[in-house]
């Protein structure tokens, strides 16, 4: 079987023929058993292609990948301390930016009388944060964030590089929190997402605590 339309059947199948060609081929098909048969077979090929299952590699590639990117096979997190080993001027400068970026929220909370005293903050447990679905309505989390931001808001010189590093890390974490919240909005009962959001909230607190601790030690 090979007529003038044989080489055009895939284009017809994909809807890529010009209207006039499509009309002509459709007029040809009723009288051509070979073209109809071929067209049906091509459809089956396309159907098979779309139904192919993805198969994982026979051996786990993760150990090799982890080794090549400098992680252990168990994918340990890069040492977070490396990201926070700033000098005192750098921390002081960063605190100014933190205050500018989010200090407004703390000020507003303070105006409403909801910001706890610093001594209260130290004694607080973060266990309640495991119920992440309460975020962002969790006033305790917001208060802790605000308290820490104020704690590290020490006057100092601005260091643009440090500002960028801290601001970037906060943006990343906030982005992760927003993404988790968005996912939870679609699936509120998803335990993985709840845990994931809780982890991100703790991560933000930990970042701020480390910065506050270092700033306090150097001030």
């Amino acid at each position, binding site marked *: 079987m090979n007529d003038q339309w044989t080489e055009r059947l895939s284009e017809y199948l994909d809807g890529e023929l010009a209207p006039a060609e499509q009309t002509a081929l459709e007029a040809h098909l009723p009288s051509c058993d070979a073209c109809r048969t*071929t067209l049906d*077979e091509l459809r089956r090929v396309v159907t098979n*292609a*779309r139904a192919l299952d993805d198969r*994982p590699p026979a051996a786990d590639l993760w150990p090799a990948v982890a080794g090549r*990117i400098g992680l252990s096979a168990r994918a340990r997190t890069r040492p977070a301390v490396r990201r926070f080993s700033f000098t005192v001027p750098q921390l002081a400068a960063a605190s100014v930016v933190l205050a500018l970026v989010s200090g407004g929220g703390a000020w507003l909370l303070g105006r409403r009388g909801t910001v706890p005293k610093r001594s209260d903050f130290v004694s607080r447990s973060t266990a309640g944060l495991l119920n992440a679905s309460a975020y962002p309505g969790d006033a305790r989390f917001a208060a802790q964030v605000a308290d820490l931001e104020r704690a590290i808001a020490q006057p100092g010189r601005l260091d643009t590089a440090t500002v960028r590093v801290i601001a970037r890390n906060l943006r*990343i*974490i906030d982005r992760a929190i927003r*993404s988790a919240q968005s996912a939870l909005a679609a699936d509120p009962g998803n335990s993985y997402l709840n845990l994931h959001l809780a982890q991100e909230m703790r991560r933000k607190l930990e970042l701020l605590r480390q910065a506050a601790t270092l700033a306090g030690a150097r001030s």
Partner: protein
Amino acid sequence: MELTTPGVATLRRDPDQRALGDAETADAALAASGDGRAFERLYRAHVARVHSLVRRMVGPDHADDIAQDVFVRAWTKLATFRGDAAFGTWLHRLAVNVILARRTTLGTERGRYVDSADILDGVAGRAAVPELSMDFEEAIGRLPDGARQVFVLHDVEGYRHEEIADMLGIVAGTSKSQLHHARMALRRHLER
């Protein structure tokens, strides 16, 4: 940008898949900040698809090495992922780029885009008896390089001819011709 990859289109429509995509976006952000466990989750979620793509595009011999390359490249490029599309879409396109970059070292050159059906005739004729006929994956693997790559990118992965032409450095007409020859060869395989 309209997403044409079948799996990606599903992500856009299915709320559960969309939620999963959001979680992956979060993991991508964490991984970009150095979280190895987040990156491992992404690896686990996508390794089957990436490995299958590599295996279909270049064959099984180099699939493990190139799949590793894809994830190593992804780790170094995570900062460029902005979440505008699904992480899987970003990773998939990155995988295609890695695979195509390896074509040269693997001896798969542009000249392999033969425009004749003759070379494809043998694809369906290698199995001596029907009960021992190769499966569909194996038949794809026996296509000439050019026809196989176009077929995989178009019919399996859902790219358009214009995109394929851009990726492979050919014209759209050649992509269409290669696709048709590949389908015709595989059709003969299905006949048995």
